[in-house]
């Protein structure tokens, strides 16, 4: 049941990858790596679609990434209205790992651009919920 603590509104209660939330609570964003063939995944997978192994381990996503694209949402779907406006984007990290998420609200419009260097920051939300965001590196 731990996984429903992930994000502002969760739509998934149960997953074999629920340890993801525990890592976030310990200030780490982690993906999974297949112990048999070495394939790395983010978002985390519990099952390797390359070699069909279910023997997975967690690895941390660290260091500097590059923002590939982004958008500032001026309207929100039901359940997210109070957050408007908010910026979402995709960044690429080491080994080609891509991460989708929100950007730090404190970043000004003038600094957010494709190509900017970013890093991951785990964040605590209301009611013991956890998430992560991208902020300037």
């Amino acid at each position: 049941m731990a996984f429903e603590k992930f994000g502002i509104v969760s739509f998934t209660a149960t997953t074999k990858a629920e340890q993801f939330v525990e890592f976030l609570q310990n200030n780490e964003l982690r993906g999974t790596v297949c112990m048999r063939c070495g394939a790395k995944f983010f978002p985390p997978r519990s099952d390797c679609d390359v070699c069909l192994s279910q023997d997975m381990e967690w690895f941390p996503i660290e260091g500097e990434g590059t923002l590939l694209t982004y958008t500032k949402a001026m309207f929100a779907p039901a359940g997210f209205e109070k957050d408007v406006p908010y910026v979402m984007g995709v960044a690429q990290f080491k080994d080609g790992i891509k991460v989708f998420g929100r950007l730090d609200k404190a970043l000004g419009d003038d600094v957010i651009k494709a190509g900017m260097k970013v890093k991951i920051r785990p964040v605590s939300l209301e009611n013991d919920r956890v998430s992560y965001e991208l902020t300037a590196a």
Partner: protein
Amino acid sequence: MRKVAVIGVGQSTFVRAYPGSIRELAFEAYRDAMQGAGLKAEQIDASVVCSAPEYDKQRTPAGLMAEYLGLNPQPTFYVESVCSSSSSGLRTAYALVASGLHDVVLVLGFQKMSEISSAESQERMGRGADIQWEAPFGTMMPAYYAMYARGHMDKYGTREEDLALIRVKSSTYGQINDRAVFRKALTLDKIMEPKYIATPLKMFDCCANADGSSCVIVASEEKAKDLCQKPVWIKGLGMATAPINMAGRDSFSGLKCAQLAGERAYGMAGIKPSDVDVAEVHDCFTIAELMAYEDLRFAEPGQGPELIRNKETYKEGKIPVNVDGGLLSKGHPIGATGGSQIRTIFLQLRGEAGPMQVPDAKIGLVHNIGGVGIYGNVSIFGVD
């Protein structure tokens, strides 16, 4: 495999809020197609019903529609690929007929989006992407496509005004399409007003939700020649899929599923992009039409803006695109959209498109995308 033709098409008028239930909405397109083709229910061997779930309360809608349309006791199938459901339905119907299992199959697409609020609709569409890893951030369709718009702009120098020009074209034709929901004239200045939904996409870069239904009837060669004066042949069908989550995408300036679906459809039809006389592309957002120009190889990557700046996708241009107003003007009733696009091409190839007619159109193409490039369907049609 046997040759397959489209022998009838139908569409309801697309409206903001249809004053009836989903079965009554579906009946509008069914009636239009059956009367137009001069067919009776007993001549339909099977039906394929297409919609996206959760806009209405009905579960297993194929069973309901088969009963209400008078198509019991023939087989029926439910096919879903969100916004491209009825093109996936066409592919299913094609397989059923080409294989010899059935001779005449009806594809019915419907969506009554007005049963829920716009914010609820955005939430459902957001859940048409990855609910485990992305929806918890507050995703929605305009934001997803906006990231592609930003990607195209950063890579190729595309401007917001280029996207606005696509909406100008859409409104030009929406005004003359009596089944479109949005029929007002729009100026470039009006479209460029900074009413952002998800930057860089503004209000008029986005299509409207609508209620609507569509119907396409396909038949084997033998039946088509027997039942129809001017059959429109299905020449090529291409479908492809791509990762549902953004982390799995390798580009933010084009849709891989569309590129691959296009390649497959051209290959099956044995034609080149320059052979296409008229096209319907999935312009749920202006950027989606721009990417379609390039994904379908009407333009080289990055050259899409040139096509619209030079008005090459207008009726008089090199490759007329969405000369019925597209989704931007017609509205986008998810499950009905593909069938509506097929209807337009059917009318064009038979010379029955009225004021929207492209002179002497012989080969037509439909590009219909589900989700943010999860499902790509490209279908090519032709007349002898």
